[in-house]
């Protein structure tokens, strides 16, 4: 459970757990988990990121699969941990052992569970935002759309700039708040042009940014995490 | 220590290399030449050029080419390069065409005043609509550059599939010439408001005649 989902969007976590259990997987939630360390890493505080990362590696040492409701956290865990622990052979080995076990939620469904229809139903018009890390580091583009195509009653309308960054970028959103806000507004203009009544993404941080901008603009358009859509019946 | 010595010394220190050390093996050069027939190449050349607002003409014979050029230049002052085929095909001899320049000042003055510059081309590249102009006693640089309209007359055998084929025939252009220019359509810019304008410094109009 990413720290953002844990603290701000717990329903997303519950939805993910529901879907996984529905398709027959046993879900365990190690309660000692906190964060993957990305905020510190992205802000250039590598020692502090390492401290948190070591804790993560310990907590998840014995997990068979680690399913994550976020593209950016998954790419931190799968792609950056090796870089962080370059000079610590013991943790480097752990990071390498972690890599094949960590899965972003939609990729887990399609590639490990090998399921593209989870029996969901949602009568809404939605549009899909391609979260940057998921898109460019994990190759997540068609997967969520395939999953959404099996949701009964759902209509998916593509926005014209689905792949453009929403402007979150972690501490960027507060350090360069005005630029970040401008990027969010460009994004929501595109969303509003689709006429969709909700925007879906695989990353809660994007949804927080986009949702915050929609709300500030007085728009009724909602945000839904992919897990919430797939959990819906 | 000269600047040269100190720069090279710093480069070697940065890379951990010794003076005189051979380089690591280079990645192989990447030349891929597709198969194609002459007619397909002509067609591709013309299509690419037309997309760039270049004008094209397929002449049935040297006479046909000459007549076409005569029509285009319509008696206006023109400069022709010293390319042998322009002379052989009577193009350089058309009225209002000056040619045979050996002196650069005279050439520059004539080109600056001319309405048309007529050249041949050493090669053409079909996939991009490109003319390959190699500077030589036969082809001066300014003829295809100063006048506002450029007319190029080329025999079809000189049309290559593309850049890869050119570089495979001419892996060392510097051995031949001080200047090889690839010309792909008329001069253009979009520097102001991204609006396309043709004929900024080089010719704004280009005619390619294939014989």
């Amino acid at each position: 459970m990413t720290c953002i989902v844990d603290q701000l969007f717990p329903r997303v976590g519950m939805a993910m757990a529901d879907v996984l259990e529905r398709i027959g997987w046993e879900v365990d939630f190690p309660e000692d988990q906190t964060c993957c360390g990305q905020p510190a890493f992205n802000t250039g505080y590598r020692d502090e990121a390492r401290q948190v990362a070591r804790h993560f590696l310990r907590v998840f040492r014995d997990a068979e699969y680690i399913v994550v409701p976020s593209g950016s956290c998954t790419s931190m865990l799968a792609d950056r941990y090796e870089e962080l622990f370059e000079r610590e052979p013991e943790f480097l080995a752990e990071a390498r052992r972690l890599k094949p076990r960590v899965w972003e939620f939609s990729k887990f469904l399609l590639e490990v569970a090998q399921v593209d229809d989870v029996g969901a139903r949602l009568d809404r018009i939605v549009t899909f935002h391609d979260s940057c890390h998921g898109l460019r580091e994990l190759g997540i583009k068609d997967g969520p759309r395939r999953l959404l195509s099996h949701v009964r009653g759902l209509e998916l309308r593509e926005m014209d700039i689905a792949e453009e960054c929403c402007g979150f970028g972690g501490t960027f959103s507060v350090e360069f708040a005005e630029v970040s806000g401008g990027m969010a507004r460009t994004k929501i203009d595109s969303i509003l042009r689709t006429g969709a009544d909700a925007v879906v993404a695989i990353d809660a941080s994007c949804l927080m940014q986009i949702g915050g901008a929609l709300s500030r603009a007085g728009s009724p358009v909602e945000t839904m995490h992919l897990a919430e859509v797939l959990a819906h019946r | 220590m000269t600047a040269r010595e100190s720069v090279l010394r710093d480069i070697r220190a940065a890379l951990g290399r010794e003076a005189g050390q051979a380089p690591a093996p280079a990645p192989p050069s990447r030349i891929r030449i597709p198969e194609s027939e002459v007619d397909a190449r002509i067609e591709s050349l013309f299509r690419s050029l037309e997309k760039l607002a270049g004008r094209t003409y397929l002449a049935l014979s040297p006479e046909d080419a000459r007549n076409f050029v005569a029509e285009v230049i319509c008696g206006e002052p023109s400069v022709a390069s010293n390319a042998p085929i322009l002379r052989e095909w009577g193009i350089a001899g058309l009225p209002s065409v000056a040619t045979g320049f050996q002196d650069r000042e005279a050439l520059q003055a004539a080109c600056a005043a001319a309405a048309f510059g007529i050249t041949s081309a050493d090669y053409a590249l079909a996939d991009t609509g490109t003319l390959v102009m190699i500077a030589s006693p036969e082809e001066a640089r300014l003829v295809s550059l100063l006048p506002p309209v450029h007319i190029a007359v080329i025999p079809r055998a000189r049309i290559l599939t593309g850049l890869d084929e050119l570089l495979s025939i001419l892996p060392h252009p510097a051995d031949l010439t001080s200047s090889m220019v690839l010309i792909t359509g008329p001069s253009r810019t979009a520097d102001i408001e991204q609006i396309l304008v043709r004929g900024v410094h080089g010719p704004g109009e280009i005619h390619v005649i294939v014989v």
Partner: protein
Amino acid sequence: MPAPYEQGIHETLGDQRLQAAVYASTGRLASHRRAVVSTDALPDFEDLRTQGNLIKKHAIENLDYYLEQFEANATAHSAKVIWARDAAAAVEFVAGLAKEKGARLIVKSKSMTTEEIELNERLTHHGLDPVETDLGEFIIQLAHQRPYHIVAPALHLTRFDVAEVFTKHLGVERETEIGKQTKIARGVLRERFLAAGIGISGANFLIADSGAIVVVENEGNARLTTTAPRVHVAIAGIEKVIPRAQDLAVFLKLLGRSATGQPLTVYTSFLAGPRRSGEIDGPDEVYIVLLDSGRTRLLADREKRQSLYCIRCGACLNHCPVYRKIGGHNYPWVYSGPIGAVITPQFRGVLNEPWLPFASSLCGACAEVCPVKIDLPKLLLDLRSEVNQAKTRAGKNRLERLGFKLWAWVMRHPAIYQLSGLVASAILPDGGRWISKLPGLLNQGPARAWLSQRDLPPVSKSFHQMWRERRKGAAQ
């Protein structure tokens, strides 16, 4: 007190017209590129990118060898190779040469390297008259501005801006039609080309096995600059060298497409020394200035030397959501966009403009389009870490580092982490709106920054709590 860069960004974001112009122009360049690199148009594109990266890597990692080979071959074709340690040396050389030749008027084609070394200002101080001949550069030179974009220097100006610049500096009647403005420039500059004693160009590539330079353009001004004057000086960074003429089969395909969506630019000049005997026109003398100016220092950084692979196509700018909002003039140096954000601290020191590597959401769009596969996001992350280390050594970021140390401590202690979550949910149930209602002094920091632009979600139970409750419920 906002820092100057913050003020500049704020103003740009507030300029609706400029915002629209920058977004539209970069969008257009990006879509032209997309059209010519799609798998239909160019199925080999990804392979070409890989090759571009490998060849550049090889050239950079054997740079001394290829520069020496270049010099030997260029000299064999009667060009003179000058090694310039830094900007001053390069300028000294040109000024000295101009004096020797009795040349005052100098024509110039577009070159970011010459912008980097502030060539025009410095030559003007020497009493020389350097004239930019690329239309966009000509306009901004007259307007005393810096280029706005690596490939499109006047991206930010309207035809009305141009009309004003021309009337004021050329003394012509006010003209707002773009075709006519271009004709005015053509007429003025034609005179200069034919009268100038020296032509100065950059070089997109230095070809080691030929001793030749390659200059690409669309207007014809670079051809005129390198043909009409008797003396041609090319100034290029040492990183521009590639091993073989045949490597142009890779790089020419990458450059035009990535920059402007053109399979080839209108003119590609392959120039090897002064005119040969028998050739009628062309320069009588050619000088090639190889510029170091900090590049050897970048070279020493194994992880980050890949920024030297850059072929200056500008694609990263066109795809960067941050550049597309803040524009080129808010970057502190001549190089803007993602590549600018990386090489500025590399050349000028990380503490020179410490905010620059942080002005990115790390979206990765730049790396996705870079024709030579420079890993720009990774370089930004490396630089962020370096900035913080340098700041810590200089005692400048005590509070921030303390903040992250505290954060890390909380994150290593699950019980504390969960407790802090409980506290947050107690004080932020309405998405923190009450924070923005606090008086100024208390209304600071990240919460305020966030709330200045958008709302926060309400904070209530954490997943930890919900999970526990559900388990309890299931057990019953």
